[in-house]
């Protein structure tokens, strides 16, 4: 048993922590999310330069030989600063697909560009009717000569306005929600027939509805096996889910620290409100919630490389615990701040909003509870 990180991992953590503290303070973040672009390409370039976008990849893939632990450490620090840049869509998701199933040519063309920060990916998987079911797809890819033609709509594609490319899930055969008949493609955003409606998200990021109208791609746009993409998608989405859990643990720790600080300095009835026992106990509960979440984040990170059933079980366990904690910590922080908690001015409101959206990201508490129940019943 060893909960220590290696020297290299500690270096990643310290480096990213310093970067976020020094380059991504609260006012800088506010400026970034209010800007036209809605993100900081300069910050992204800096991450690339420091090798952070390479952290979770093996040396033969052009990375530093790290993996899920590195992603966890980076995302936890990003959570502390509410970093909006698309580490999960581009590095964890697109990078994950390429790492697990990319051909040498695909890795050469895309993975090295992701690591260098030159190509930025978004992951277009959700659909308006599909909820959290990864196989429920009305987007189709039809065989067309040597290549494929795609049609359909993807919902709330995070980071799409910033992306140069998409990883897209599509149905290549079978019925709308069949497990088989799902495939994964890479599509350039500037391909003919791709259109976007961009918008901001309530937690300070940008996203789009992405439409594909007779978009033609060549055969080498397919990642992984034709019709058998679902296991690959589940693997990558589990990795992304664990990454967002780590982000939540970072955000919860800062939210808690902020609340403690506020309660100590806010006085009512002549005393700091931190002296009221009901608030003390609530802050104690917040602390216990995020500690439990950190434990589950570790567990799921470690289990990502285990067999499918064990991996899914751990990931869903983590997302349930983290989702519930995120709600409790966010709501409690707002309540303890009184009126200040519901203003746009204070950071606590932004942390609460991010935590609220994380609850549903890559599957809500209910979704993962259902998956946990099914896995338990099948075991």
């Amino acid at each position, binding site marked *: 048993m060893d909960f220590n990180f290696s020297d290299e991992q500690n270096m990643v953590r310290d480096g990213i922590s310093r970067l976020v503290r020094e380059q991504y303070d609260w006012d800088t973040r506010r400026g970034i999310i209010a800007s036209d672009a809605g993100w900081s390409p300069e910050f992204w370039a800096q991450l690339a330069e420091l090798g952070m976008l390479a952290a979770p990849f093996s040396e033969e893939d052009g990375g530093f030989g790290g993996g899920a632990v590195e992603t966890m450490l980076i995302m936890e620090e990003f959570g502390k600063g509410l970093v909006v840049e698309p580490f999960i869509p581009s590095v964890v998701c697109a990078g994950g697909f390429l790492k697990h199933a990319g051909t040498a040519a695909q890795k050469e063309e895309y993975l090295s560009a992701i690591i260098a920060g030159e190509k930025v990916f978004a992951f277009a998987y959700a659909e*308006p*009717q599909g909820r959290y079911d990864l196989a429920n797809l009305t987007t189709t890819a039809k065989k067309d000569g040597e290549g494929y033609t795609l049609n359909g709509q993807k919902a709330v594609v995070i980071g799409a306005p910033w992306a140069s490319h998409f990883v897209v899930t599509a149905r290549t055969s079978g019925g709308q929600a069949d497990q088989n008949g799902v495939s994964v493609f890479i599509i350039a955003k500037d391909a003919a027939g791709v259109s976007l409606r961009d*918008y*901001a*998200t*309530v937690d300070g990021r940008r996203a789009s509805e992405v439409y594909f109208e007779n978009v033609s791609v060549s055969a080498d746009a397919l990642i992984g096996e034709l019709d058998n993409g679902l296991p690959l998608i589940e693997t990558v989405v589990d990795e992304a889910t664990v990454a967002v859990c780590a982000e939540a643990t970072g955000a919860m720790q800062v939210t808690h620290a902020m609340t403690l600080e506020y309660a100590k300095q806010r006085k009512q009835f002549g005393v700091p409100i931190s002296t009221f026992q009901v608030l003390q106990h609530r802050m104690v509960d917040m602390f216990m919630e995020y500690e439990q979440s950190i434990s589950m984040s570790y567990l799921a990170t470690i289990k990502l490389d285990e067999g499918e059933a064990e991996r899914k079980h751990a990931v869903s366990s983590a997302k349930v615990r983290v989702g519930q904690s995120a709600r409790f910590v966010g709501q409690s922080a707002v309540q303890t701040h009184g009126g200040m908690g519901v*203003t746009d001015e204070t950071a606590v409101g932004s942390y609460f909003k991010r935590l*609220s959206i994380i609850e*549903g990201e890559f599957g809500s508490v*209910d979704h993962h509870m259902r998956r946990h129940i099914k896995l338990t019943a099948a075991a």
Partner: protein
Amino acid sequence: MNLEFTAEENAFRDEVRSFIENNYPQNIERAAVQDDMTPEDMTAWHKILGEKNWSVPAWPEQYGGTGWTPTQRYIWSEENARVNAVMPLPFGVAMVGPVIYTFGNEEQKAKHLPGIKSGNVWWCQGYSEPGAGSDLASLKTTAVRDGDDYILNGQKTWTTLAQHADWGFFLCRTDPDAPKPQQGISFILVDMNTPGIEVRPIKLIDGGYEVNEVWLTDVRVPAENLIGEENKGWTYAKFLLAHERSGIAGVARSKRGVEQLKDIAKHEMLDGEPLIQDMGFATKISQLEIDLAALEITELRTLAGEQAGKGPGPESSLLKVKGTEIQQRLTELTLEAVGHYGTPDFRSFPADGSNDFPIGPDYAHSAAPTYFNMRKTSIYGGSNEIQRNIITKMVLGL
């Protein structure tokens, strides 16, 4: 024990239902978020009710009240909630109005009550200050007597919809040396157009502007605007807080909210079935309905007590705590129900082409902002911690 309405009460229900059906303005735009509505839309129904003499049902008849029993008033609010009516704002009708007819003099009644009743005069509540929230009695805004005037200085905050207000009722310190802070406070009516008043908007987490800072710099207010006696303002404020709490349970509106939630859960699909068929989600809706049923009967028991001549007591803190918990739970479940489409910020949607390419269903747009915004309900009107303190002290006697 009998929960049935009498024949007269049922006839009353029919009467108000048909009045609402025939008169509720169809052109009121309910914005995705309530406080994005125009001031005209917010007061349109109030003005119609004013003409009908139904805008201030709870007031004594001599000032324009309807003389309805508490049960009739309950039926009235139920019927309005059925159509999701935009009701008169509480600041005039439920707060300062009762203070004026209870503690004001004849001139004050004649001057202010008609405008509150008609909906032509917009009121705001100037109590809270940056340093005085839960501990309201520590407020610092001063009113210093100068001839026939008071001169007001200080800062109020969280003043709801003050950006539209014509008048405000303010708590100010008139005796800084009183032995208890509660004893040096006065209740003063202020024309919001008086020089020296500056209203600065505060943006809330849902992106809307419903509260403000109100800065008062040498604001000269005629002394005739003092309600009752100088330094007795806390008594009037406490009286008002009790009034503020009746109706705070929001039962009728939450019932309507549950229906809306069920509609959403019928549209949203999970594994090929409507979400409402899912045992997990259906359990949560049922739990909410059960809690709401309990609250409704608790409120009716309180009403029955009122009908028997008992004023609203500290047990109304129970209505506030449970009522707001249910309102908040409703917004949690709505956000859960809409799935991915809770994430887009509808305020940022491009104005063009929305019908060709909708960004999720319309009902999803308000889910997250409403969830964020409704966190306020356990904070304002005496936070839920303060309400529990009140029950601890006044009900449990601890």
